[in-house]
């Protein structure tokens, strides 16, 4: 995705989605190491089953990380993601293919911010993670 311009983002607009490659177990091991979240429900099937899960589940923060990737791509080098807020509603498992979606809900000319409604889905219309983001465009000149 190309970085979007402040001018072209319109309230109500749906942004082109980001489809991530299928989650792999090795990705969960890498994310555990890189993030410092060593909860074994994300990397060890035996521990996951012991606490009643069907097997390892992805870190919620990995899905939030995808939304961070997606929203940061929108602003590119022209600004930054100043707020991300999500609720984790459903489990993500190895093999799942996730799609990030966003819709513009507000624009503030003075602050040069864009508010977005964001979600991560496996099946269309069923958000596994959802929330809000604000991207801040830097003022030029």
């Amino acid at each position, binding site marked *: 995705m190309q970085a979007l311009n402040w001018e072209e983002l319109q309230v109500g607009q749906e942004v082109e989605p980001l489809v991530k490659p299928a989650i792999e177990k090795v990705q969960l091991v890498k994310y555990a190491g890189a993030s410092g979240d060593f909860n074994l429900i994300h990397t060890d099937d035996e521990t996951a089953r012991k606490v009643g899960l069907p097997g390892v589940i992805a870190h919620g923060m990995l899905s939030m990380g995808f939304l961070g990737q997606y929203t940061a791509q929108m602003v590119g080098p022209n600004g*930054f993601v100043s707020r*991300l807020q999500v609720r984790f509603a459903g489990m993500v498992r190895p093999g799942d293919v996730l799609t990030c979606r966003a819709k513009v809900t507000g624009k503030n000319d003075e602050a040069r911010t864009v508010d977005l409604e964001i979600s991560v889905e496996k099946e269309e219309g069923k958000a596994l993670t959802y929330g809000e983001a604000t991207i801040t465009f830097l003022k030029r000149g």
Partner: protein
Amino acid sequence: MLIDRSVIGSASEPQVHEIEKGAIRAFAQAIGDDNPLYHDEEYARQHGYASLVAPPTFPTTLRVPNPQVKFELSRVLHGEQEYACERPIVAGDVLRCASKVIDVYERQGKLGAMTFLVTEVRGEDLDGRLVFRGKSTIILR
């Protein structure tokens, strides 16, 4: 309840974290995020940053445990998460981070009684300027 409400208001010792380029790259790579701001220092410099930029959810790596709050890690699910930043975090930043328990409460869920723990983290530079805030809700079952 799995956590006593007496921990509300308790705080961690502040911890000083140095933001490292390798940690940024490893974190972005685990997410599968190839944004050049996180990988290519020259590119980041060309866009006005002192060094590599950290992805929006990078503060999750800056762990500040609160010794007063104890629970079994494998019983934890992530409920909600928010990050807000005043400016992007950049490699070379030195941030003083501290966490504080905001709330503890119980709800009945599909899986029985669940305890919710709400924690806030604040990261400041060494001059005391706020750089990021995080708010997390974790669920113990």
